[in-house]
Structure formats: structure tokens, C-alpha cells
């Protein structure tokens, strides 16, 4: 069971983490992209926190829609629509509630993943954020199905996201800018998968 406060704390913790890892994200994006993923995520999540402070949403649905709208209108690039859609769909699926059961949380998060797939059409192995997000949600569902607490399930999801992130290293990119590099994309960790791992780690640190 997660409360509205915990959900906000998750969002804030994600903001803190992307800011802390800003340079790392940019360095990863320098190697196989255009060196802006750190700036994009830090700018977007900075605006999200500002909006949260100015106008704390009352429900989970409102919270995540606000996060999603803010990202769509502040980030740009690929990550703006992708993360924006993730949170918008998350919010719609969560609904106008102030608490989320573990199963409801997992369902909403998966709706977010489906939003990412609808927008960017990533497939497993394309070397994108999908490759961290999909395994994380599979682990979350599996743990919860096995009777784990949300906290334990999120820790398993975070480990899966990290593993998914690491698994992007040997992949040959087939989506996004890294795909332009062909073989040269091999050997580099995907920036979007890295920021997704932070998102799931932030959830494990704040929820359940």
C-alpha cells in the first residue's frame, strides 16, 4: 500500500537522482547520442518538482498526469514524449485515488510501459529505455504474484532494471540516435535505460 505522500516522495527522489546522475547520463549520451539526456531529464524533473511544490495534486491520477504533462512540455527530444507518456498513462490507470494497492501500482506502471511502447515502438533488444523498464515490470509482477511485499517486489524490480540497463551494453542499437552508429553503438550503455534504472531504484527507496 502506498500513500499519496509516498508517491510524491518517489517522484521527488527520482528528480534528486537524475540531478545527481546528470553528468553520467550526459556522458553516456555523448558516447552514442547527442549529449543531452542528463540535461533533458534534470530540466524536466526540476520543472516537475517546481510544479509539485506550487500545486500539490490530491490524487495519484492527478499527480502522475501532472508529472507527465510537465515532462511533455519541458523536455522535448525523445525522452520528453516517452517519459511524458509513461507518466500520463500511469496516472490514467491509477485513477483518482489517494492510495494504491501493490497490484494497482504494478498495473498502472505497466500501463506506463505500454504507453512507451505505443509512442516509440521499442522492442526488446533495441537498446532503449524499454530494455530496463520491461524486465523491471516483469520482476515486479512476478514478485508480487509470489506474495512479496511491494517493497521487496520493487527491490527485485530495481535489480532487474539494473540488469536490463547493463544488458544494453553489448546491444546493437536499433532505435533512437544510437541506431545511426550501427556497430559503433555496441559496448556502450544506453542513457535512457540508465535513467529508467534510477526511476525504479527511486521507487524501491521510497515506496512499500
Amino acid at each position, binding site marked *: 500500500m502506498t500513500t499519496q505522500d509516498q508517491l510524491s516522495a518517489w517522484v521527488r527522489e527520482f528528480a534528486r537522482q537524475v540531478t545527481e546522475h546528470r553528468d553520467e547520463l*550526459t556522458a553516456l549520451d*555523448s*558516447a*552514442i*547520442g*547527442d*549529449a*543531452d539526456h*542528463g*540535461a*533533458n531529464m534534470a*530540466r524536466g524533473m526540476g520543472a516537475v518538482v517546481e510544479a509539485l511544490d506550487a500545486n500539490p495534486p490530491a490524487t495519484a491520477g492527478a499527480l502522475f498526469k501532472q508529472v507527465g504533462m510537465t515532462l*511533455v*512540455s*519541458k*523536455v*522535448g*527530444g*525523445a*525522452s*520528453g*514524449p*516517452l517519459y511524458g507518456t509513461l507518466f500520463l498513462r500511469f496516472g490514467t490507470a491509477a485513477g483518482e485515488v489517494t492510495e494504491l494497492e501493490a497490484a494497482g501500482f504494478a498495473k498502472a506502471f505497466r500501463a506506463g510501459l505500454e504507453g512507451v511502447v505505443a*509512442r*516509440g515502438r521499442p522492442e526488446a533488444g533495441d537498446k532503449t529505455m524499454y530494455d530496463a523498464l520491461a524486465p523491471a515490470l516483469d520482476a515486479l509482477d512476478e514478485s508480487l504474484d509470489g506474495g512479496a511485499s511491494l517493497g521487496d517486489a520493487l527491490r527485485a524490480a530495481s535489480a532487474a532494471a539494473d540488469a536490463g540497463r547493463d544488458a544494453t551494453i553489448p546491444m*546493437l542499437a*536499433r*532505435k*533512437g*540516435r544510437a*541506431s*545511426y*552508429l*550501427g556497430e*559503433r553503438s555496441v559496448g556502450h550503455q544506453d542513457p535512457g535505460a540508465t535513467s529508467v534504472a534510477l526511476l525504479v531504484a527511486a521507487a524501491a527507496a521510497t515506496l512499500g
Partner: protein
Amino acid sequence: MKKLINDPADVVVEALRGMAAAHPGLRVDLENRVVFRGDAPVQGKVGLVSGGGSGHEPMHGGFVGRGMLDAACAGEVFTSPVPDQMVVATEGVDGGAGVLHIVKNYTGDVMNFDMAAELTTAKTGVEVQAVVVDDDVAVQDSLYTAGRRGVGTTVLLEKIVGAAAEQGRSLAEVAGVARKVNERGRSMGMALTSCTVPAAGRPTFDLPDDEMEIGIGIHGEPGRRRVPIAPAKEIAEMLVEPILADADFTSEPVICFVNGMGASPLLELYLMYGEVATLLERAGVRIARSLVGPYITSLDMAGCSVTLLRADDDLLGLWDAPVDTPGLRWGA
């Protein structure tokens, strides 16, 4: 990092402020980071909106004006603008004949422009069409890439399509011209040095003094391959050959565009143009028009790109038509 800037976070809006001051004929919406023609919307004319990440100046803001774009949205450096900006731009240029979005083929640009088109049409009923430019032969257009990047052809396309819109052609016709230009244009670029994204503070890639990147785009991304530096003659071959291998340019006259990436001086660009022209002549390609200079840049990257556009009488006439923008101006 050595740049003529203040806080890296403010680069885009401060540069727009300078543009606004330097070009009183434009209307610059600093809040939304949109550069408008001073007289937009032009009633009865198809509105042309483009935009993309900043760092490619004069593209796109410098191509706003009579005979070219009606509005350009400036994103953060190398980051596609957001849908809100595009909605403001689209509404601001709608003169009742519909609006064409000119989008370079990058995942982010395509997704954001898609969202903007949906939003505008839902909100206002303005008819919006989009053309996606994808002309970079360095990238294979296959299921295994995000498709070809939009690079140099974008400049030629915005000029030509701008003239078509200025003539009063319909949205369908204008979009048709845009697609035709895109189908007939091919580009290839190279870098002698990396660029430095202001917010990153250091060069995007390290390039030893004796190496260069072939097949780069316009976002400081590394290219397809890294090779030892070579004389201009050989660089010209490395750029022209893949273009000629990709499409036939001997059947009609071409517009030949040698573009600077931002830090390569005109002296070198003209020298490159000479090499390119020699190669084309040898290959039986007839140059009807040319453009030489830094028009679609990549911040402070040294290097160049070559774009060839297979033209016909209509396209040449549209190319020659008057244009009055900060970046391209003739006949006006």
C-alpha cells in the same frame, strides 16, 4: 569550454533575444521560443512551421521570413522543441489554408511534432500536414535504424517549399513539393572536431589530432567511421561517392550545397566546393545552382557536409524566387 555565452541554461533564450533585436522584421515569442514572420499569419497562404533543437543556426529561426518559413520553434540545444511550442507556432501562422510541419527525421522531433499536430487539430481544427526530411546517406534506412536523419536537404526544402507557399499553392500541393524535394535530396557529412554542448561543458566525443569522423549528423553524434585526416580532395570523394551511389544525379540539373558545420571558415568551404564541383563534373552531374556556407550547423563543430538535390524547372524556379530571411536573402 570556451563560448560567447552566459549561463549555459540560458543560451537559447538569450540568442533568441539577440535575434529579435537584430531583426525587427521578425516577431520573436521569447516565452514560447518561437520565431514568427512579422506579418504572420498571412491570410490565404499555407503556413510553414519548422523547428528542432537549437545549435544549428541559422536553421531554423534564420529561415523565417517572406518566401520561406512562417514560424520556427527553437528547442534546447540539440533537443527537439516540445509540442506546446509547435501548437503556438501552428496557430500563429494559420491563415486559413492549412499548415505544413517540416520535421527532420529524429525520434524526438517526430514524436513531438506528432503530438503537436494532434493537439492543434483537436483544439482548433486547423488542417495540419507534416513532411519528414530524411536525406542522410550515412545512415541506412532500414528496420534496424530510426531511418535516415534529416540534414542538409532541409535547408533547400525550406527555401523551395517556402516559395511554393508564397505563390499561393494549396496545402496538398505544398506538401507534395516538400515530399518531392525530400525524395530528390541526399546528404553526407564529416567532422574534423567534435562540438561542445553548452550544458555538457565538454566535447561530445574525443577526436585525436590526426583523425576525423565520416558520416556524422548535425547533433555532435559520432559518425559511421573514424579515419585518418586526409586532404580536401579525398574528403570530397568520401562525401560525394556515397551520395552518387545512392541516387542518380545525372538525369537532371542539381542544386549543390556545401555546408559548414559551424567552425569551418568560408575559405575552406569554398575550397571544398571546388573539389566537389570537380568530382561532379567528372561524374556527369550538371550543377545548376549552388549554395556554400554554414547554414545547418552543429554548434562549434569543424567540418562540412555536401547535399545534392536533383531539380527540375519547377524546383529551380522556386529556388530562384525572392526570399527575405536573416539566413537566406535574394530578390528582396
